């Protein structure tokens, strides 16, 4: 091990490995963690009991819930989320959340118990190779078999999880290492020889980028979560306002810029807005900031922005020219890059180019948005529900979404005034994410309103976390947009599988009774006249609140780019 460390804490003699784990968490500034006890992690839980005045452990109802809660916490607080589980099934239940955190670059440290080191490889009770299982979905992982290894490995875990492009780290600790006593001291990790999380910006490339920007007649920006992770919101806003370039977001970039900012031109990608998708294939310069050209953003790569020069602001060298080849790559933290660009950029406006966006926006408004937000048919729409939430949140709420139609609608229509307000499962598309993520989102931003918007399918994948919400007395607002279908899959079946609705219709339980069973105030509505009062009551409550909105069963989400089609093949109906 060759970690560069400093500020070594004083030695605490003869403590257990389990106590050392707790002391490491405290040294790293952890206040909240999510988990579920079991045999191989019991020594650590015993220490959590002793340290309960300093560390708040939240008992979720399933280990998957612990990872999503840790993710939600990380996304609203900007800190590392921590999840704890026992060996075997406890550990394997973490895997979905870890994979989600990996693909969405969420800083998370997972701690798992493991059977005693002399039993490793013996197929002992609740033994599983969680290091092997989690390897492809972690940024780093490590097994600890000796108590003395705990401080350095834990310091590395937090450093790796939060630095550079963040991600999940898993530390597996054998039970004997938790019991073993040793003399503890802690040094924060500040560097690892083989790991260079912050590439140094090449100033020549900055000049090249500025030259391309100065030449451009129809420049366009697409930004992603990198702006939020790099805490570059201010630099980004300055860049937009100075450059005068219109900008659109990927789903994880949402909320980095206030929704009503004049430079905001909406969402790109499969269910993104009409103008930014169409004009991706019309711009002469595409500036990608902290985004990775996911296939849901680009559609067919062979027809993606082929006419444009491309500048890519990126932190992760592995993303450079991975999906789209850039003319200029600015490899560095985008906060630094944007600051440098801001120093050199010439203020400009593009009235004719902006008009193109306005014209296409008008088409989308007429064909899609108006009907979503001001429907004339009897059934409630997802869009009008989100719009009503906007009315009462005034754009100040954290919106947590699951995966599917409701997610696309919520992201399209929700209004945000501040960053770190959109919590969703983007890359992995994990149904069941929202309810537990909302728990962490609320604890990561306790002073903010947190509204979880969930479909009836995903809600039932982690519905047991209502128990956690109740036990923690968290004032999370839960809105289930119930269409009695796995709506997005049904939409695809309708459009691409000749309406063969294979296993997408849901016979649902009484969601209100279930919520009430958890002592959570609950209401169901299915009439337009009830919507405003219901949303108003929910938002006014200082308690957890469940609202089921029965929406039109077979509505589709548009615009839509069919899988593998060009962004300019976007459909409005």
């Amino acid at each position, binding site marked *: 091990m060759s970690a560069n460390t400093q500020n070594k804490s004083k030695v605490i003699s003869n403590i257990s490995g389990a106590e050392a784990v707790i002391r490491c968490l405290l040294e790293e500034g952890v206040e909240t963690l999510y988990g579920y006890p079991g045999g191989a992690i019991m020594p650590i839980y015993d220490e959590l009991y002793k340290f309960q005045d300093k560390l708040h452990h939240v008992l979720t109802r399933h280990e998957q819930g612990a990872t999503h809660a840790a993710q939600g916490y990380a996304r609203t607080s900007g800190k590392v989320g921590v999840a704890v589980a026992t060996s075997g099934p406890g550990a394997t239940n973490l895997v979905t959340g870890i994979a989600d955190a990996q693909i969405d670059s969420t800083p998370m440290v997972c701690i798992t118990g493991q059977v005693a080191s002399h039993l490793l490889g013996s197929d002992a009770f609740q033994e599983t190779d969680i290091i092997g299982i989690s390897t492809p979905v972690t940024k780093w992982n490590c097994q600890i078999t000796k108590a003395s290894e705990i401080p350095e490995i834990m310091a590395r875990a937090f450093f790796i999880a939060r630095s550079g492009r963040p991600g999940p780290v898993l530390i597996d600790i054998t039970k004997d290492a938790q019991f073993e006593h040793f003399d503890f001291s802690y040094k924060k990790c500040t560097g690892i020889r*083989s790991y260079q999380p912050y590439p140094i910006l090449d100033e020549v490339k900055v000049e090249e980028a500025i030259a391309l920007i100065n030449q451009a007649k129809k420049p366009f920006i697409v930004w992603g979560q990198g702006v939020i992770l790099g805490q570059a919101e201010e630099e980004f806003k300055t860049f937009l306002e100075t450059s005068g370039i219109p900008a659109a977001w990927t789903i994880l970039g949402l909320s980095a810029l206030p929704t009503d900012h004049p430079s905001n031109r909406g969402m790109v990608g499969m269910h993104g807005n009409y103008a930014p998708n169409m004009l991706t294939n019309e711009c002469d310069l595409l500036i990608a900031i902290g985004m990775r050209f996911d296939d849901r953003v680009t559609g067919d790569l062979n027809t993606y922005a082929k006419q444009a020069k491309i500048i890519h602001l990126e932190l992760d060298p*592995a993303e450079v020219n991975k999906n789209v080849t850039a003319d200029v790559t600015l490899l560095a933290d985008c906060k630094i890059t944007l600051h440098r660009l801001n120093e050199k950029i010439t203020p400009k406006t593009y009235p004719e180019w902006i008009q193109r966006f306005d014209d296409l926006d008008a088409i989308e408004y007429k064909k899609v948005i108006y009907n979503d937000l001001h429907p004339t048919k009897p059934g409630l729409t997802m869009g009008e529900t989100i719009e009503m939430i906007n009315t009462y949140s005034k754009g100040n709420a954290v919106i947590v979404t699951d995966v599917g139609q409701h997610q696309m609608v919520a992201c399209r229509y929700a209004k945000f005034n501040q960053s770190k307000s959109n919590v969703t499962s983007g890359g992995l598309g994990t149904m069941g994410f929202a309810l537990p993520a909302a728990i962490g989102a609320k604890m990561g931003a306790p002073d903010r309103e947190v509204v979880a918007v969930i479909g009836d399918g995903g809600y039932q994948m982690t519905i047991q976390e209502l128990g956690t919400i109740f036990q923690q007395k968290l004032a999370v607002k839960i809105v289930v947009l119930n269409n009695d279908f796995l709506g997005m899959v049904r939409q695809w079946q309708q459009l691409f599988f000749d309406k063969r609705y294979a296993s997408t219709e849901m016979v649902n339980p009484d969601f209100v009774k279930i919520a009430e069973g958890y002592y959570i105030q609950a209401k169901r509505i299915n009439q337009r006249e009830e919507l405003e009062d219901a949303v108003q009551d929910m938002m006014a409550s200082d308690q957890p609140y469940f609202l089921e909105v029965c929406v039109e069963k077979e509505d589709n989400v548009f615009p839509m780019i069919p899988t593998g089609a060009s962004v300019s093949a976007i459909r409005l109906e």
Partner: protein
Amino acid sequence: METKTYTLSVYSENNIGLLNRISAIFLKRHINLESFSTSASEIPDVFRFVIVINVTPNTVRRLVQQIEKQVDVIKAFYHTDEETIFQENALYKVKSSALFEERHIQNVIKNSHANIVTVSPEFFVIEKTGFREETEQLRKDLEPFGLLQFVRSGRISVTKAKMGISEILNTFKNNNN
């Protein structure tokens, strides 16, 4: 795009689990490895993987980016056959009677520049270092005499160009300080 043989040289820390992490990168992309070998490198405490794959130029570039992204990897390179000096090592176990009963086998061994490693009353072992075609030719030539066992190592390779790992490590050290 046309595929080609590439030799990947990966310099890394010697940590448990890294082998799994690197092989997972190929598994995820459904890429078969032609050969894989690990050893010490020219720098103390730095480990070296030599991996041979047959892929397109775009794929090899992305693979190396993904490998280098791993926390415990210091640096990864890829080279074509023309850019490297490479060898493989093979062992052939043949029954000893063949050596005395079949005169021709002695010519085969001599002409292939192979070495006899050990001789016992029951069997003898031949070792041959060279290119894949050479070790393969010897296998074919020995087959008629009754090949009891055959094994070939993964490719080991050095590059014609400088790797400069010590310099890279120094830069990293400065970046971290």
